[in-house]
């Protein structure tokens, strides 16, 4: 039996550590396994290993469960885990932070890995279990010793599916076969945690660049599953008795805009605030998603429906544009009409409406806007430029995140105040924020964490670290021959069976 699935994009990069691309992460979940995982309560759970924490909270011991095998037949050893964690930590933002507090990671025997902290750090388990953007996938030591700047050359994991190299066509199609030697956990599957019981022989991912074609193929039964049918096209599927449409990734996405702190006019916090006041989430979401069933206004930088969710400081975002307030601030700051460069990536439909709406709203508030259309590649290159907007730099751009990528101040890439060296594009230099982040990772109780996160959130809004533009959901659709399709922030193919 074979599940044919249309994923949201084509798989081109196969190394889930080197990239944060979601499709590669999803691929990672197919063929690799993780040490820990997250269940539907957003709580870490054991997956490949159980863990214990020493009394002082400074040592974490992970014990691998029995029967774990790589696809090449070798047993999974503690050494593999150590190498994999190290490589992951080299690439992942949270991982890097963790390493800053870590004294050593060592294999004490074939089945046991010990991580010893150098300073208190209360966030170890959450980081190793997190499902996005770079989960800590475990691969054989020889693969994991590839430098973090180079892609791995083999694709051998210990996950429930095997990658079929011969049938792989980059950007077009990937084939996975059930890994017969995989030993699932006995708990029921829940998000990425629990037993990964594969109930089909093969899973084929195809990339259909044309969504309409995907819908048609789903209707005609040529494919079984479509990860992200465009919301505007859902009416075509909703009438059908053969097809189920449902939101699997219930947390959804956050869309946001980022300002460049380095250059005028956004080097002035008043102008940043003016921009924030000028924008409103309803218009952006209305243009981006359209159907209110699938979006919600959400001021929380950590995403709504997450443990840390808060509105603190973001009240203005809930109320819609404050054009007058924005104008007043602009006047106060003495904005001289310098055009602000908005980068619009016209080739990616999920990020091209935001700048168009924003341009209009900003203009209404008195900004001079230079909306520059470009392809996504140009955008990602250009946003890395710290030059002035006139010399190939920029003032503002937009992108989207899945909620697990932003759901706490450690993971959230924007909430880094490290300036031109460390911070994410936009480069806020914000020592106060950094201090709060450190406080956060050293907090010992959930209440304390909550409090710090809220404070940090308030601060981030005050300085306009970035402008969250709302949360939206992306439903999936599948034919009713499939059963057992489960909710999860990552599309997962275990536990699904297919009727003939």
């Amino acid at each position, binding site marked *: 039996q074979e599940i044919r699935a249309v994923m949201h994009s084509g798989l081109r990069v196969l190394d889930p550590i080197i990239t944060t691309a979601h499709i590669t992460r999803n691929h990672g979940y197919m063929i690799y396994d993780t040490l820990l995982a997250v269940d539907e309560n957003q709580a870490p759970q054991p997956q490949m290993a159980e863990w214990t924490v020493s009394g002082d909270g400074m040592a974490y011991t992970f014990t691998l469960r029995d029967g774990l095998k790589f696809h090449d037949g070798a047993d999974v050893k503690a050494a593999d885990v150590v190498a994999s964690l190290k490589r992951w930590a080299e690439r992942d933002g949270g991982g890097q932070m963790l390493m800053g507090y870590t004294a050593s990671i060592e294999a004490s025997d074939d089945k046991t890995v010990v991580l010893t902290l150098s300073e208190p750090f209360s966030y170890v388990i959450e980081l190793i279990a997190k499902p996005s953007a770079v989960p800590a996938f475990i691969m054989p030591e020889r693969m994991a010793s590839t430098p973090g700047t180079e892609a791995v050359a083999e694709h051998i994991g210990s996950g429930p599916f095997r990658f079929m190299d011969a049938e792989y066509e980059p950007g077009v199609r990937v084939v996975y076969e059930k890994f017969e030697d995989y030993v699932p956990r006995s708990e029921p599957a829940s998000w990425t945690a629990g037993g990964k019981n594969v109930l089909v022989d093969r899973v084929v991912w195809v990339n259909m660049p044309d*969504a*309409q074609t995907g819908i048609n193929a789903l209707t005609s039964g040529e494919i079984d599953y479509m990860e992200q049918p*465009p919301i*505007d*096209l859902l*009416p*075509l599927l909703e009438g059908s008795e053969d097809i189920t449409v449902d939101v699997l990734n219930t947390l959804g996405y956050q869309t946001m805009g980022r300002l460049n702190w380095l250059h005028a006019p956004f080097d002035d916090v008043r102008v940043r605030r003016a921009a924030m006041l000028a924008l409103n989430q*309803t*218009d952006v*979401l*209305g*243009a981006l998603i*359209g159907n209110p069933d699938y979006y919600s206004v959400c001021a929380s930088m950590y995403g709504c429906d997450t443990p840390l969710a808060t509105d603190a400081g973001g009240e203005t975002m809930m109320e819609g544009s404050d054009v007058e307030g924005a104008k007043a601030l602009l006047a106060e700051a003495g904005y001289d009409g310098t055009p602000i460069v908005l980068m*619009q*990536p*016209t*080739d990616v*439909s999920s990020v*091209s*409406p935001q700048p*168009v*709406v924003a*341009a*209009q709203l900003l203009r209404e508030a008195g900004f001079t806007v230079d*909306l*520059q*259309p*470009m*392809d*996504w590649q*140009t*955008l990602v290159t250009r946003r890395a430029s710290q030059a002035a907007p006139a010399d190939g730099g920029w003032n503002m751009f937009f992108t989207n995140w899945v909620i697990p990528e932003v759901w706490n101040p450690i993971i959230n890439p924007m909430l880094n105040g490290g300036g031109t060296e460390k911070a994410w594009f936009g480069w806020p230099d914000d020592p106060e924020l950094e201090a709060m982040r450190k406080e956060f990772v050293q907090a010992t109780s959930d209440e304390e964490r909550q409090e710090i996160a809220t404070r940090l959130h308030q601060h981030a809004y005050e300085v306009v670290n970035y402008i969250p533009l709302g949360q939206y959901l992306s439903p999936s659709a599948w034919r009713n021959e499939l059963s057992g399709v489960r909710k999860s922030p990552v599309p997962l193919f275990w536990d699904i069976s297919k009727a003939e």
Partner: protein
Amino acid sequence: MTQVEARAEPLVRRRFPSLTGGRGIGIAATLAAIMLFLIVMLAIFAPLIAPYDPIQMDPSKRLQPASEMFLLGTDAYGRDLFSRIVYGARISLIVGIGAAVVSVGIGLPLGLLSGFFRPLDAILMRIMDGLMAIPSILLAIAVVSLAGASLWTVLVAITIPEIPRVVRLVRSVVLTAREEPYVEAAIAVGSSLPKIMWRHLMPNTLAPLIVQGTYICASAILTEAILSFLGAGIGTETPSWGNIMSEGRVYFQLKPSLIFWPGLFLSICILSINLLGDTARDLLDPRMKQRGAAR
């Protein structure tokens, strides 16, 4: 001689019909001229005709059906479709006609030269082979990134790959035509090469060029939209017919009017250009004029 004078009489009368071709330029062509004129007027006076600002959006009014308020409904950003089509005529006409005129304007002389001079042909055609191989998307992205996105960069990116095709076409016609005895005759009366090319060879290329030209016009308008969506065009905010249709692609089944209306305008426009082209060419070819008059 006596018979000579006598002969003169019917010839005098015969002159008259041959000049007018038996009938005027025809109803179809007149209609075409009127349509094209109207579309051009639409473009020029867009601000007066369009009821709304074409980029003014209102996401709460997205994808509305046609109504009194929105003549043809609204698009996915809640912008008035009719206003967008009216304004879209500007970009589309410039891109379409511009690409056709420029590629023919450059391709025709190159093709004539290439068809006529063998040594030049070898070099020129190799350059054309190479030019053809460069994808217009790449060219567009490069030009846009070097010169910034504007109508002109788009025009350049669209036109350059069309030029070799025009050159090849013109050249192919010239290769046949240059063997005609009347070309020899022209050489014999000492006509300069430019004159031979222009007067004796060029008219042979007109019929295929008119076809190719209208095709380039239509395809440029559509290509502009593709480039816009790949981030190498004018951008999707500024309306153009191609753009409107491409944006409507997702709503093909749900709201076909987003494609239908701009498509209709485009078709009428191209059809008019075509009919005018055909008429022009019939007028230029004396033999054709006569055959047309038969019916």
